[in-house]
């Protein structure tokens, strides 16, 4: 299941299984990122972060080659630098996951749910297409408040649906 390709100086062996794993993690992460619920977005970020860290690891060479002095000749080491980079990235992703969790909880406390609401401006533009609800010039603020209510209603519908 391995194939070899030559990039610049040294031959790099790419494990197809690992490459596929990274691909699946990215796909799952991006799909979850597209959803409205902040919890799903959070899980999406976590999965995407894992995919990225795995990719960083793979950049250092194939698995099961620990870069520990004395256990193997240096030529058969994995490159330790990407492991250091991945370690830094893991710490950062971990911290931001915690922050997103806190943000989701805050949204839950304030709004009652953790769904990302519609953009008020997009709502205004969307309404301009409907002839029955024409937008008069200069009523921006009232309109914005009205749109907020609609957003709330839409969010409530979304909750009931799910």
């Amino acid at each position, binding site marked *: 299941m391995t194939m070899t390709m030559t*990039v610049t100086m040294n031959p790099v062996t790419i494990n197809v299984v690992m490459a596929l794993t990274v691909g699946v993690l990215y796909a799952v992460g991006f799909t979850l990122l597209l959803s409205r619920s902040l919890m799903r*977005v959070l899980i999406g*970020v976590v999965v995407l972060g894992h995919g990225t860290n795995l990719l960083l690891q793979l*950049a250092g060479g194939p698995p099961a080659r620990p870069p520990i002095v004395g256990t193997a000749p240096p030529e058969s080491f994995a490159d330790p630098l990407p492991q250091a980079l991945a370690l*830094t*990235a893991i710490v950062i992703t971990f911290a931001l996951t915690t922050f*997103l969790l806190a943000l989701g909880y805050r949204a839950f406390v304030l709004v009652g749910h953790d769904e990302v609401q519609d953009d008020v401006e997009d709502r205004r533009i969307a309404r301009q297409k409907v002839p029955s609800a024409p937008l008069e010039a200069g009523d921006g603020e009232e309109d914005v408040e009205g749109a907020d209510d609609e957003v709330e209603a839409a969010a409530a519908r979304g909750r009931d649906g799910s």
Partner: protein
Amino acid sequence: MTTVLTLPVLLPMLGAAVTVLGSRRAALQRVVGVVVLSVVAVLAGVLLVVADERGPIVTQLGGWAAPVGIALVADRLSALLLLVSTLVTLAVLVYAIDQRIADYGRGTASTTFHPMYLMLCAGVSLAYLTGDLFTLFVAFELMLTASYVLITRRTNASRIRAGMTYVTVSLLSSLLFLTAIALIYAATGTVNLADLAGRIGTLPSGLRSVLGLMLLVVFGIKAAIVPLHFWLPDSYPNAPGPVAALFAGLLTKVSFYALLRTQTLLFTRDEPWTLLLVLAVATMLVGALGALVQNDLNRLLSFLLVSHIGFMLFGLAVFDAAGVAGAALYAAHHITVLATLFLVSGLITRRTGTVALDRMGGLARSAPWLAVLFAIPALTLAGMPPTAGFVAKLALLEAGAAAGVDTRIVAGVVIMASLLTLYALVRVWVRVFWGKPCAPLPDEDDADEVVVGTARSSVPMYVATGLLVAVSLAIAVFAGPLTALTARAGADLVDPVSYRTAVLGGRASR
């Protein structure tokens, strides 16, 4: 000299630590913040003078020589932007402190604002000074994490929504950045920018394009290039006044700096970059046209911010020394003018109690100083002579006119977008400063941080805003030396031999 290079990063970090420890002592926090940023501003000035006279200054951190260790590099471009950015952060900090004193009295300390503000400044300094792609990622994370906290402080429902959009989009672009770093490391075996400059040229052209485009997408999201700009007008207007000014002034420009640095150093090209020209046109027009239909003052300014990112992109897209120099000058002017406009918008909002343009009026009579403070940066942004905006736009137009036919067409769009900017700002002027005075509206939401509908703006807030106006006027007054300086910076960027030799020493020839 080498120690001086680490201080713009270390001092704000130490300051942040001190303000955390002294989180109950408001006076200590204020003094530490202002002193640290003043010292960093002086250091940045010293770095700029030395880098201009003797070439790039390099520090190899931890005693490991690049490309193994991490290098900090200050060349003309990074030192200039560091200086301008620090002046802006200093003025915004003074404004924020005075707003807090005016609203809550002298005694109230903040556990989060000062530490996060200084951490953000540390991140900005590191992003300008680093000579290493992964450290650039860390710098962005430092800066963005602090900005996540600042944008979601004292949350209400609308700020949570803005925060969610902002955090999610920024995280996505950070993960893409990490992906790009992993791929670049896998292909070349180094993350040192100077070393990469030599090695990326040997890659197959397809692979090189993929890596270049990935970095373009990453910094395009962070710098709000159309069509990746949608998050910005949604999130910035909801931030508290000084924080919005800080973000508008710095974050997008740091990302543009990263784009400028990586593209000129790693993906050199000999002729204008058509893709970026198209993106520049889209960014300029979408931003300016979006600004025309806004009724919310901060949202209008956010769209103008997006529009003027396009001007800088145009300079980079021309991809010769003159174009890149114009982009650098434009970035320096843009940092100050956008921060000023958001601060003025904060002052207007405090006075009128609303951000809706159609509910304001007559401020020219009731607050003439505010009118002056708005008029100067507004004319600067629109590029009216003899302001700094005119000098920067002239540099861009000259570069565009000299480079070829397609850049000449885009130069026409630059003029059109400038006129649209002027129109949008004149609209603000007519609605806000002329007409019948409106009574201040009552503060609808007492819980949030924004105190509105009060004439209780302290004099230092006006002074801090005035200082920023003075900086942008100084850019206009010293236009000659500054243009010469950015021209030298542009020549350095297009032909980065001095940068590579300074970082790598004798190994640069590889």
